[in-house]
């Protein structure tokens, strides 16, 4: 663990240090209020009836018996939500089609996966609500289903949407299919490139859907008054997004809906969409009382978005000296029941860590009878990059080159043109590889049955619309209000940047996450944008506040505003007037605010531009049990470019958390379906995420290649850490066993079977 991350000669007082987070005490004492922790007077309990079938036409729903049950106050079905036209609307880094959203929150013509909402009930108790669900009669026509992505693409596969014609294909197909979209990114000429290759390696990989696994289930309390004023309390990554979706689905003005984000118990991308919120509002409107809805863990697994499972083909050609001359990939990603898998970002970042002349990546977005996928930490990236990094490792072995050197030889750098379009600014691929090479971990001898693997990873990061307000209180302390929910220490980072700008102590600033009525629009906490964007807006708000403070002092001193400056937490006469007046601290400025023009503050409303990618290189050591096939990660080092770490502890935390999720993805986590199309492991007992005894300490190295377009050099750091682990571990397992795995998860039965097969052929190392 590094003590402090500061540039030599850094003038920073707060940035790069490790202060206690402002919301720490609330979170260690149980005071912090999460989604399910709010109680409103007279609240009802809302429950959802879900489809037991993976695919069925809904011929009719009879809710009359449920409505008559004493204690039932409202029942809603798809009829309570107006249908929406099919059109793709930009929503941050994704596109939204409300025709699908309205069908996702409540099934209309068909149930498209086991767990698809059919109806919702609000009652005076959970027991009555559950009883009411049993009284709802649904007439289903059960249809054939399809779960596997490759099966779903075949002609004759059961069709989820009879009107889905593959987009991005010329000429447009004449028959519908489950392929929603084809995307393609091409640079140079791969056919010509492969002709120059001394070695070509082509492999196919499969990955399973994995769930974000946030420990806090989805939860909401909604209340709608008789005059249509709605208030929503919800655990979400973006309350302005919740507001937009709910207003749209219910046909209400945006101004009628106020959304407050509770503390959020993990999201990882999974809390960027709406599930219960529109249902709770519709129920509350009907019942005239607040409605609280909380998903069970089983509902979270069955009916909230995991990320895609996928089938990936990768083909890479190299010369003997290790230069990559051509790279190709074909990605088939499951979207779940509606179009919108992360295949596009997966395709864009497949080869992004490398400076290549000839690249061709094709991706397919495929619907299947599973819950619609939601974003999961670097959505799409871990899947494609796992496949690419595995093949790169195999090539290194085949041409007898050190895998770090092979990557260094082909590494993307400033000025590299990525296959998906842009030219990179300063990026840290080479720096993380050099840090890996220099790390003691890379040179430490391995024990028996152990192997070492290395892999790199890339993620874009985004900026986007952001509003922050900063007010100078009457005693000189400050109130900072941001609108991106704090999932992992954001309040600390924002507070530190404000303190740095203003030259005041952090504890003079109280920071809160405002509701949608308190600030202008904020895009969500996702895309690793919160510290970047809200940080940029905080700095701008602080600078505006400083400007105003200078203006007030200048007025008092009867000087032109150019003749004062703000330094070390005080306004001072500058230049020829220096020393003519005593400096005024913010406390003193606050005291004259009223008589010099009123309250002082800064308010920043920006579209944060200049987000920069973060690259990582990870080293994993594994030990494989030759008798059981269990893979233990025994040592792990995550090296990543943070741009600049505002609070290094929480940057390290992002690295470590991403690695832990990646280890789960690599070794154990998967959605398991029966032939009946039903999920068989919808609980933490059978969908086992890594626990403390599964993991080693996770060492981190923060590399800093500052982002020139952020006032403190920040890059997003949250998503990249989940990109390299699957390949790093697969490469380590190959190194330990002599067996190359191309299927995730590498769970004990699969590893043991592969080891036995290799032993029979004499190719196993253990």
């Amino acid at each position, binding site marked *: 663990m590094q003590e402090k991350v500061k540039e030599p000669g850094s003038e920073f007082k707060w940035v790069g240090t490790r202060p206690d987070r402002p919301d720490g005490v609330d979170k*260690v004492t149980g005071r912090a209020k999460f989604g399910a*922790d709010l109680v409103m007077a007279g609240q009802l309990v809302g429950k959802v009836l879900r489809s037991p079938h993976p695919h069925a036409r809904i011929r009719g729903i009879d809710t009359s018996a449920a409505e008559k049950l004493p204690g039932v106050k409202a029942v809603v079905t798809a009829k309570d939500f107006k249908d929406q036209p099919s059109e793709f609307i930009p929503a941050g880094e994704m596109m939204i089609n409300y025709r699908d959203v309205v069908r996702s929150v409540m099934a209309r013509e068909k149930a498209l996966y086991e767990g698809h909402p059919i109806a919702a009930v609000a009652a005076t108790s959970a027991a009555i609500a559950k009883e009411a669900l049993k009284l709802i009669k649904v007439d289903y026509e059960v249809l054939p289903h399809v779960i596997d992505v490759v099966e779903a693409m075949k002609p004759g596969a059961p069709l989820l949407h009879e009107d889905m014609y593959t987009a991005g294909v010329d000429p447009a197909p004449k028959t519908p299919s489950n392929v929603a979209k084809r995307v393609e990114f091409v640079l140079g000429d791969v056919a010509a490139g492969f002709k120059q290759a001394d070695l070509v390696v082509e492999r196919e990989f499969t990955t399973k859907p994995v769930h974000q696994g946030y420990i806090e289930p989805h939860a909401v309390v909604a209340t709608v008054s008789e005059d249509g004023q709605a208030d929503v309390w919800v655990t979400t990554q973006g309350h302005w997004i919740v507001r937009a979706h709910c207003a749209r689905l219910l046909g209400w003005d945006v101004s009628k809906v106020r959304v407050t984000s509770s503390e959020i118990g993990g999201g990882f991308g999974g809390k960027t969409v709406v599930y219960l919120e529109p249902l709770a509002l519709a129920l509350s409107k009907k019942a005239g009382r607040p409605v609280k809805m909380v998903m069970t863990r089983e509902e979270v697994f069955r009916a909230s978005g995991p990320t895609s499972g996928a089938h990936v083909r990768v083909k890479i050609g190299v010369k003997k000296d290790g230069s990559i001359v051509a790279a190709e990939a074909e990605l088939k990603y499951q979207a779940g029941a509606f179009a919108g898998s992360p295949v596009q970002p997966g395709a864009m970042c497949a080869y992004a860590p490398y400076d290549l002349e000839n690249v061709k990546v094709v991706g397919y977005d495929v619907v299947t009878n599973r819950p619609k996928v939601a974003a999961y930490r670097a959505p799409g990236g871990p899947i494609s990059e796992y496949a690419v990094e595995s093949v790169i490792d195999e090539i290194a072995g085949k041409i007898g080159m050190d895998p770090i050197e092979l990557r260094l030889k082909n590494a993307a750098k400033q000025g590299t043109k990525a296959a998906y379009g842009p030219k990179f600014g300063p990026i840290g691929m080479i720096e993380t590889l050099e840090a890996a090479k220099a790390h003691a971990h890379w040179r430490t001898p391995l024990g028996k049955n152990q192997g070492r693997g290395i892999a790199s990873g890339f993620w874009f990061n985004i900026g986007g619309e952001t509003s922050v307000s900063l007010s100078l209180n009457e005693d000189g302390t400050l109130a900072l209000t941001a609108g991106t929910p704090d999932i992992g220490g954001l309040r600390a980072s924002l507070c530190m940047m404000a303190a740095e700008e203003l030259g005041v102590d952090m504890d003079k600033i109280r920071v809160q996450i405002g509701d949608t009525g308190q600030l202008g629009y904020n895009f969500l906490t996702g895309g690793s944008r919160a510290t970047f964007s809200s940080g940029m807006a905080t700095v701008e708000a602080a600078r505006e506040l400083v400007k105003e403070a200078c203006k007030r002092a200048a007025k008092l001193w009867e000087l032109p505003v150019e003749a004062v400056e703000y330094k070390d937490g005080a306004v001072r006469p500058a230049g020829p007037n220096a020393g003519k007046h005593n400096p005024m601290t913010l406390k003193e400025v606050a005291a004259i605010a009223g008589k010099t023009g009123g309250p002082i503050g800064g308010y920043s409303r920006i579209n944060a531009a200049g987000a920069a990618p973060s690259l990582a290189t990870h080293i994993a050591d594994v030990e494989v049990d030759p008798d059981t096939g269990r893979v233990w990660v025994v040592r792990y080092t995550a090296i990543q470019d943070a741009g600049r770490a505002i609070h290094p502890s929480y940057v390290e935390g992002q690295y470590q958390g991403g690695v832990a999720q990646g280890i789960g993805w690599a070794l154990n986590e998967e959605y398991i379906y029966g032939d009946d199309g039903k999920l068989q492991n919808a609980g933490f007992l059978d969908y086992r995420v890594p626990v403390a005894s599964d993991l080693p300490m996770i060492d981190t190295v923060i590399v800093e290649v500052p982002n020139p377009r952020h006032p403190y050099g920040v890059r997003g750091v949250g998503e990249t850490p989940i990109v390299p682990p699957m390949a790093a571990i697969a490469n380590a397992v190959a190194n330990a066993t002599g067996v190359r795995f191309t299927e995730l998860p590498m769970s004990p039965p699969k590893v043991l079977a592969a080891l036995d097969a290799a032993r029979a052929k004499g190719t196993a190392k253990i």
Partner: protein
Amino acid sequence: MAKHHVATTVNGDAVEFLCETQETLLDCLRDQLGLTGTKEGCSTGDCGACSVTVDGRLVCSCLVLGVEANGKSIGTIEGMAKGDELHPLQRKFIEHAALQCGICTPGFLVASKALLEKTPNPTEIELRYWLAGNLCRCTGYDKIVRAVLDAATEMRGA
């Protein structure tokens, strides 16, 4: 059916509540007593977010019935700090940045305290296996393990 009357002690205070037969201790703490520091992550005993102590023994409160609390002494996260002074574990969790979202934190703190009361000087392995019933999806456990070991050192010295 009439509700059950339960008389129990929570964090040292005598309390009474009424509950249904099937109501869990977790639901009673949260819904009857307003002690929402104890969290529900799964309700099947797999995640440990609802960890509390019953007569000093660490349990998942989602696997205990409310009626079973009768005559017992319950310890929750709300009783961990003494007056305005945080427990060393709470302090160390903040210092070590051993939480990100914070939803699992009350459970980890209650579980860690229960361990250190029996085993003041645990090894890293003992600690990791003791905490294996508490899921954290944010931190990878690294900083949690460091925080608990550091708190244990401080508590032994005090």
